[in-house]
C-alpha cells in the first residue's frame, strides 16, 4: 500500500486532525478571527463526514476491512462510527455555536474535533496500546471542554472532578491492558491469518487467571467512561457543572468509545464469558439501570435528571452487551451488538437534542437548568419545546420515536435467547428488570414534558439561545421520528456494520473450542502460544 492510498483511506481522520490544528491556530490568531473558529470547525466536521461517505474505498465498508497500519484496522464498524460520530460532531458544534466565551472558542472547537478523532480511532484500533491512546484522546479534550464551557466556579469544579476520576480510570484501564498483554504476549487484538481471523485472546483451556484479571480491570476502567454503576457517582455533578452543549457531548462520545472498546474485549474472547464474569456484568447492568432510573426520579434539576437518564441508558446498553453478537437474532430482532450500535447512535442524538433545547431556552442569561427554569416554556418557545418533547419521548422509549426501536431491539435480544440456553433465565430476569425500570423512567421524563407544557410560565425565561441550538434541535428531533417510520435502512446498516464483530467472535469461538492451539506458520505476528500461557497459570 502506498502513501496516497493510506492517506485516502484515513482521510476523515486526517481532515479532523488538520482541521483541529487549524481551528486552534485561528482561535489564537487574535482579534475578530476568534469568531471564525466556530464556522471553521463546523466545516471541518462536515468535510470529514463527506469524505467518510464518498471516499469509502471498497474495503472499508466490507466485513473484513483492511489493516492499513500496524494496529489500525478499518472495517465496517469504522464506517458506522465515522458516519455517526461526525454527524453528531457537526450537530454538537451547532449546539455550542454561541457558547464558549470569546478568546477561547478556538480551543473549545479544536477540543471537540480532537475528541471526535479519538472516537474514530477507537473504532479502528486493533491494538491494545492504540485503543488506550484513542480512548485517552476521547477523554482528555472533554476535561478541557468542561473547564472552557463556562466561566463560573462550578465548571472548574466539575472539570477537576472529571479529570481526577478520568485519570484514575485511565490508570486502571492501562493496568488491565498490561495484564492482557501479559496473558497473550502480544498487543494485537485480532490477528489476520490466511483463511480466517483469530484473536490474540484465545487459550487452549479456558481463560487463564491473568486474562481474567485483565478483563475485569479493563471493564472497571471502561465502566467509568460509560458511566456504569460502581463508577457512576461523578456523572450528575459533572453534567450539572458543564454547560449544556458539553453535557450533550459527554453523554455520547466517551460512552460510545467505552462500548466500542468493550465490544473489542469481548469479541476477542469469543464472547464466551466465564460464569463469574457473566454475573459481574449482570449485576452491574441491573444495578446501573435501577440506580439511574430511581435516582433520576429524585432530581430537581433537568440536567441532573438527564445525567441519571444517561446512567440508565448505559444499563440498557449493558443488557445488549450481555446478549452479544451471537445470540438474539430472532426474526426482526437484531443481534445484541447490532442493537448496541443502533441504540447508542440514536441515544447520542436524542440526548444532544434535549441539551440543545436547554441551551436554546435561556434563563437570566444562562442555560435553563431546573424544572422551575423551563416551567411553561411552551408558550414562549413552542418550536423548541416540541423538539424537546420529541427527544424526551425518544429517551423514554415511547412509540412514535426511534428510542422505542432502540429499547425494543435491546430488550427483544435479551428475551430471544433459547429456553435451553443456560443464560436464558438470568437474561429474561434482567430484561424484566429493565422493562420495569423504563416504566419508572417514564415518570421523570414526563415531568420534563409536563413542566414545559403545563407549568406556570416564568418571566425570566427567554428563548434567545441563538439559532445554532435550534437548528441542532431540529437535526436531532426529526431523525428520531423519521427513523421510527423508516427503520429498515438504519437497522440494516447497523446489522451490516456489526457483522465484523459477529465474524470475529465466531472465529475466536472456533479457536477456543479447539483442544490445542498450533500457531500458523504464515502468521508473522510475534506472540506466545497458548501452551506457554498455560504453564504460567496455576
Amino acid at each position: 500500500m502506498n502513501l496516497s492510498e493510506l492517506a485516502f483511506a484515513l482521510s476523515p481522520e486526517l481532515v479532523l486532525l488538520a482541521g483541529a490544528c487549524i481551528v486552534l491556530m485561528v482561535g489564537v490568531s487574535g482579534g475578530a478571527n476568534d469568531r471564525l473558529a466556530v464556522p471553521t470547525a463546523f466545516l471541518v466536521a462536515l468535510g470529514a463526514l463527506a469524505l467518510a461517505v464518498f471516499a469509502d474505498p471498497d474495503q472499508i465498508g466490507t466485513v473484513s476491512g483492511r489493516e492499513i497500519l500496524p494496529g489500525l484496522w478499518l472495517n465496517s464498524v469504522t464506517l458506522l462510527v465515522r458516519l455517526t460520530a461526525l454527524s453528531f460532531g457537526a450537530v454538537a458544534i451547532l449546539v455550542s455555536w454561541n457558547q464558549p466565551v470569546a478568546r477561547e472558542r478556538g480551543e473549545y472547537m479544536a477540543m471537540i474535533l480532537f475528541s471526535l478523532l479519538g472516537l474514530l480511532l477507537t473504532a479502528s484500533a486493533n491494538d491494545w496500546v492504540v485503543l488506550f491512546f484513542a480512548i485517552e484522546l476521547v477523554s482528555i479534550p472533554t476535561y478541557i471542554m468542561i473547564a472552557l464551557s463556562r466561566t463560573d466556579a462550578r465548571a472548574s469544579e466539575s472539570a477537576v472532578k472529571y479529570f481526577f476520576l478520568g485519570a484514575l480510570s485511565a490508570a486502571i484501564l492501562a493496568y488491565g491492558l498490561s495484564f492482557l498483554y501479559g496473558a497473550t504476549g502480544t498487543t494485537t487484538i485480532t490477528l489476520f491469518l490466511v483463511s480466517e481471523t483469530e484473536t490474540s485472546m484465545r487459550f487452549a483451556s479456558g481463560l487463564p487467571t491473568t486474562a481474567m484479571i485483565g478483563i475485569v480491570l479493563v471493564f472497571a476502567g471502561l465502566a467509568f467512561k460509560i458511566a456504569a454503576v460502581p463508577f457512576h457517582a461523578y456523572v450528575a455533578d459533572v453534567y450539572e457543572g458543564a454547560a449544556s452543549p458539553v453535557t450533550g457531548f459527554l453523554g455520547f462520545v466517551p460512552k460510545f468509545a467505552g462500548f466500542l472498546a468493550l465490544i473489542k474485549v469481548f469479541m476477542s474472547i469469543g464472547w464466551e464469558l466465564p460464569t463469574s464474569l457473566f454475573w459481574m456484568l449482570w449485576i452491574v447492568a441491573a444495578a446501573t439501570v435501577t440506580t439511574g432510573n430511581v435516582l433520576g426520579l429524585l432530581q430537581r434539576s433537568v440536567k441532573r435528571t438527564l445525567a441519571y437518564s444517561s446512567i440508565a441508558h448505559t444499563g440498557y446498553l449493558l443488557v445488549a452487551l450481555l446478549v452479544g453478537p451471537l445470540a438474539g437474532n430472532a426474526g426482526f430482532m437484531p443481534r445484541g451488538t447490532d442493537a448496541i450500535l443502533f441504540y447508542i447512535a440514536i441515544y447520542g442524538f436524542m440526548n444532544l437534542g434535549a441539551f440543545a433545547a436547554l441551551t436554546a431556552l435561556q434563563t437570566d442569561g444562562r442555560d435553563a437548568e431546573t424544572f422551575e427554569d423551563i416551567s411553561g416554556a411552551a408558550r414562549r418557545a413552542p418550536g423548541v419545546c416540541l423538539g424537546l418533547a420529541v427527544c424526551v419521548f425518544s429517551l423514554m422509549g415511547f412509540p412514535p420515536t426511534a428510542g422505542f426501536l432502540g429499547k425494543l431491539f435491546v430488550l427483544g435480544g435479551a428475551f430471544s435467547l433459547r429456553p435451553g440456553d443456560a443464560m436464558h433465565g438470568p437474561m429474561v430476569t434482567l430484561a424484566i428488570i429493565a422493562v420495569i425500570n423504563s416504566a419508572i423512567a417514564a415518570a421523570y421524563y414526563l415531568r420534563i414534558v409536563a413542566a414545559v407544557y403545563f407549568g406556570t410560565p416564568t418571566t425570566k425565561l427567554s428563548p434567545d439561545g441563538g439559532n445554532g441550538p435550534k437548528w441542532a434541535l431540529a437535526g436531532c428531533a426529526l431523525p428520531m421520528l423519521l427513523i421510527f417510520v423508516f427503520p429498515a435502512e438504519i437497522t440494516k446498516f447497523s446489522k451490516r456494520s456489526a457483522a465484523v464483530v459477529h465474524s470475529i467472535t465466531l472465529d475466536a469461538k472456533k479457536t477456543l473450542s479447539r483442544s490445542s492451539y498450533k500457531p500458523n506458520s504464515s502468521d508473522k505476528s510475534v506472540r506466545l502460544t497458548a501452551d506457554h500461557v498455560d504453564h504460567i497459570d496455576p
Partner: protein
Amino acid sequence: MWIEPYAAIGATVLIAITVAIGMLVIAHTIGPKRHGPVKDTPYESGMPPLIDTHRRFHIRFYIVAMLFMLFDVELIFIWPWAVSFHEAATTQAVIPLNHGTDVGKGFLLIAMGFFFLLLLFGLLYEWKKGAFEWD
C-alpha cells in the same frame, strides 16, 4: 512451579520490608531521646526557619513545568525511535504488517515527521498564546 521465577522478587520485597521495619524498630527502641526547641525543628543542624514553607509562588512556574513535561515526553519518544531507525537504516529491517505488507525506514521517517509536525503546531499555539513570555 509457576511461582519460581517470581521467588527472587518476593525475596527482595521481603528483605526490603524487613530492613525498613527493622531500622524503625531499632531506632525507636535503643535510640537516645532528647527533646528541646532546637531538637524538635525539622532540620536540627540547619538554619532556623525564616518563613512559613507554605508560600505561594507564581503560576508561571506551572507553565514552565508543563512545557518541560511536553518536551521531556517528546525526547523519551524520539530516543527509542532513533535507535530503531538506525537499525532499520543499516540492516534494511522491516516491520511486518498482518496483511503481508512490510514497512521500512521510509515509514519510520514519515511517522516521526508527522509526530514532529503535530508538536510544531503545539509549539506555535503556545507561542501565540504567550506561554513563553515571562511577564
